[in-house]
């Protein structure tokens, strides 16, 4: 990463959302979130949590970057991320216990999500807090967009609903494609989404 020059805002937005999109460009961090993509609502909550955690931990890491000794920076970053994840977990448990139960351990697993750590390490460690915050935010957003697409496809094909609302054609005439809401469906849909995105921008893949 370039250290001296501050990246302009437009570039941060474009890289996070499309050019360096965490999922189909870097294949990072699908672990903790793919499992909840069988329902759109769960995915939405999970992605919001992840975007917030990424943005805020990037901001904090960047604030503390000149006081953090280099050899223990991974541990410091992990603790910062864990701090924000705990806040999200506690808030969710207090105000939306049903959602907290159905997400199960996945909120906690944001800690080991490679995207958060990856952005902290690659960008926040060498950039001012403001830019780091937006970089984390837009990377989280780019990631969320792809996962929401996957969730819409999976829930629509597998159960004929969108956020629990029946869809016009899929809930009446469509034979429910159960495998889509089961784990194999997650793998297939993600693979197809990556395939589609990489076919649109094939040159990016080569390097």
């Amino acid at each position, binding site marked *: 990463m370039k250290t001296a020059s501050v990246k302009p805002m437009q570039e941060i937005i474009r890289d996070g959302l499309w050019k360096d999109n965490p999922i189909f460009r870097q*294949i*990072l*961090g*699908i*672990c*903790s979130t*793919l*499992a909840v993509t069988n329902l759109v609502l769960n995915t939405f909550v999970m992605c919001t949590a992840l975007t917030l955690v990424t943005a805020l931990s990037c901001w904090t890491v960047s604030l503390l970057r000149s006081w953090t000794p280099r050899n223990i920076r991974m*541990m410091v970053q*992990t*603790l910062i991320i*864990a*701090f924000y*994840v*705990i806040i999200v*977990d*506690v808030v969710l448990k207090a105000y939306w216990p049903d959602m907290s139960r159905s997400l*199960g*351990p996945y909120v*906690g*697993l944001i*800690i*080991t*999500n*490679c995207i958060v*750590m990856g952005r902290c390490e690659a960008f926040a460690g060498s950039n001012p807090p403001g830019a780091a915050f937006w970089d984390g935010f837009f990377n989280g957003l780019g990631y969320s967009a792809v996962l929401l697409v996957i969730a819409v496809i999976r829930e629509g094909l597998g159960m004929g609903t969108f956020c629990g609302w029946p869809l016009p054609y899929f809930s009446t005439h469509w034979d429910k494609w159960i*495998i889509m809401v*089961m*784990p*194999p*469906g*997650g*793998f*297939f849909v*993600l*693979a197809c989404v*990556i*395939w*589609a*995105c*990489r*076919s649109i921008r*094939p040159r990016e*893949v080569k390097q």
Partner: protein
Amino acid sequence: MNALGAELWQAVVVCFAAVFTNNILLTTFLGMCPFTSVSREVRTAAGLGGAVVFVMTFTCLLNWMAYHWILVPLRLEFFRFILFIIIIAAFVQVVEMILDRFSPRLYQNLGIFLPLITVNCAILGASLFMVIREYSLIVTIGYGFGSGLGWLLAILAMAGIRQRFNESRVPAGLQGPGITLIIAGLMALAFIGFTGVLS
């Protein structure tokens, strides 16, 4: 004695389920990052898988003790994320030092994988699952070992399949992670077939 026997049997069942029907990789998608990046060769996949089995069994055990004997009495359950991460990192570090001191050969084979494991979501995930599902100590050991074994099995199978793929012509957009995910999906389908073998 009978209660212990029942618990041991439950541990066996949970272990079996963790390997086949509830495979941590193929049903909960945990540990995907190393799964897609380190599955090119059978040898390295086996090394990483072996390290995961070992670390997962022991960290599950340690985390169970830390959670039930320290955090629950103090009512600090929300603190578990940080504690688990620290325990996992410390355990991996200690194992690394012990291996380096007593078995340099094993260290050379396994050494590069150990630091990777600290950030492997599957390790933390197994510990969080064992808390949420309220397993007892003995069942936790079975669960940790089974989950590790399931992960090893999945990555070994994937590496074996991918080696055969070297000569195949995969569509440009699917090369690398894309095709790996499709194979993983097919494997997940196959693993669903184990449902109901042991109950």
